[in-house]
């Protein structure tokens, strides 16, 4: 999905003169051709994230539509105050393209994970946030960002994810029904959706057929649409590759108390602790209880249908 997102922006550079891409010394294999062929629209601002963000804000003020590409901690954490003051407070059309969502980079270590980025993004008014499940959602998020006057943050996994959606004809700002079901709904965002799909297969023999809902636009969530999709459910389980304390589980809990919709809400995600475990992505997902098998096991325990 990383390449799909970036290629959508790169393609647009052929027809739009105002699009500019900045990298913080990341992107081997992503920009190789672009930086040769359209060198005038690309800049590597090195390992200097504070400058990278303020610079992008300044560039946006001269009329450019700026994309900033980096690993999530280096596009949102290291330079949080620059994102807050220079991009969001000034309401500039800069899109932060963050890669390595959640624990995608396992076992690179805690410094390279992004398990609190949605919590951070929630503190930034004006910022729209996307967390696509597949290349199609990534492409539509890219198209949205190209026409968006607000700051945008896109949370991408890496590359090689298969397409889940069958077509591109949907509104990327709305929660998406991926599979229909009864009584139980699983709400998720990002590439962990692939585990959720597998979990659904596993649950078939238990005669549990959850409805699956992807939330590509995580901030703001279209709650009206989401709650209409969740109508008549008995159980709703959120699954995400993010800390439990500040992801969509937490966001949905806040909406839940306002609306009191009648279903039971359970939240699955990464425990709120610094990660010292050394495992590959599958092992890490297992460890945190968000692998397909663990999701299925959890639902079997919680749900009576």
């Amino acid at each position, binding site marked *: 999905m990383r390449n799909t997102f970036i290629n959508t922006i790169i393609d647009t550079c052929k027809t739009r003169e105002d699009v500019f891409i900045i990298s913080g010394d990341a992107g081997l294999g992503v920009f190789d051709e672009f930086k040769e062929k359209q060198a005038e629209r690309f800049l590597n601002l090195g390992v200097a994230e504070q400058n990278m963000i303020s610079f992008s804000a300044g560039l946006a003020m*001269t009329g450019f539509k700026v994309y900033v590409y980096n690993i999530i901690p280096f596009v949102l954490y290291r330079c949080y105050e620059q994102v807050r003051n220079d991009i969001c407070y000034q309401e500039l059309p800069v899109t932060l393209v963050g890669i390595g969502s959640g624990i995608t980079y396992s076992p690179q270590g805690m410094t390279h994970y992004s398990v609190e980025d949605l919590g951070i993004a929630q503190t930034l008014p004006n910022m729209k946030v996307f967390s696509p499940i597949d290349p199609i959602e990534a492409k539509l998020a890219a198209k949205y960002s190209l026409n968006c006057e607000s700051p945008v943050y896109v949370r991408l996994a890496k590359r090689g994810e298969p397409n889940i959606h069958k077509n591109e004809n949907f509104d990327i700002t709305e929660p998406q029904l991926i599979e229909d079901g009864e009584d139980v709904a699983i709400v998720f965002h990002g590439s962990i959706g692939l585990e959720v799909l597998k979990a659904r297969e596993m649950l078939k023999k238990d005669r549990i057929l959850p409805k699956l809902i992807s939330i590509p636009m995580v901030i703001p969530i279209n709650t009206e649409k989401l709650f209409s999709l969740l109508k008549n459910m008995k159980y709703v389980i959120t699954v995400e590759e993010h800390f439990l304390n500040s992801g969509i589980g937490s966001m949905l809990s806040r909406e839940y108390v306002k609306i009191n919709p009648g279903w039971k809400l359970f939240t699955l995600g990464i425990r709120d602790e610094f990660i010292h475990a050394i495992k590959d992505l599958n092992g890490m997902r297992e460890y945190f209880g968000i692998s397909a098998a663990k999701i299925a096991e959890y639902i079997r325990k919680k749900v009576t249908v």
Partner: protein
Amino acid sequence: MKLKNVQISKEIRKTIIELANQSKSPHVGSSLSCVDILTVLYFDVLNLHPWEKRDIFILSKAHAAMSLYSTLATRGIIDRKTLAGYYQNEGTLPAHLDRFTANGVEVSAGSLGHGFNMGIGMAFGFKKKKEERRVYALIGDGESQEGSIWEGAFFGSKLRLDNFTAIMDYNNLQGYGRAREICTFEPVKAKWQAFGWHAVEIDGHDHNAIKGACAEDTQGKPKIIIAHTTKGKGVSFMQDQLIWHYYIVTDEHKNKALCELDSE
């Protein structure tokens, strides 16, 4: 011309004193420090016509906002009514800059080490668009301790932004001490030169020197003007006094300061 600008600087200083007194806001010393620089920029250097194609001035050391607001009012870019709403309940202008409040407030700033880098981005943008607009950013000596300044310094020279000028208001008196005592500040000119910048060192209260430094050709390099200044300049009891980073201007202070400025 020289005399006229000196008179303007005096008027701006008086406006700052009045404003600080009415608002009971701090940073009067920081604001008085850079008045001569702002006077020369706004009355001699910046190309402001047509407004859409104007040169950009960024007050990166945005705690000196009273200086910018007073200069903008004196130059006729904002009106006196807007100025009077500074730091007031339901007012018009905050103590640190919000670009949505008034014409001439080019960027929102207050946290140090942001405006300078935004300015570099803007200068790059103007070059990309082949626009002849120039960008000036005023930074503090305290602000120069921010790592982001040096991140920007790396790239300003690499990108050959000769349309960008940074001016350092070097009053050697920051929030809680002197730059030269707090860290290895000197040799600061050599530091900028080592980063590939055209560096000029001047008396930051000498209008001709400021104007001359702004006009200096840099052979493709970005420019840093290291302007030696005195915090609280123009009011004897405020000059080079740390407390005037924070102190509130009482009526007594105001009368004494205005009297002194008038008798100059």
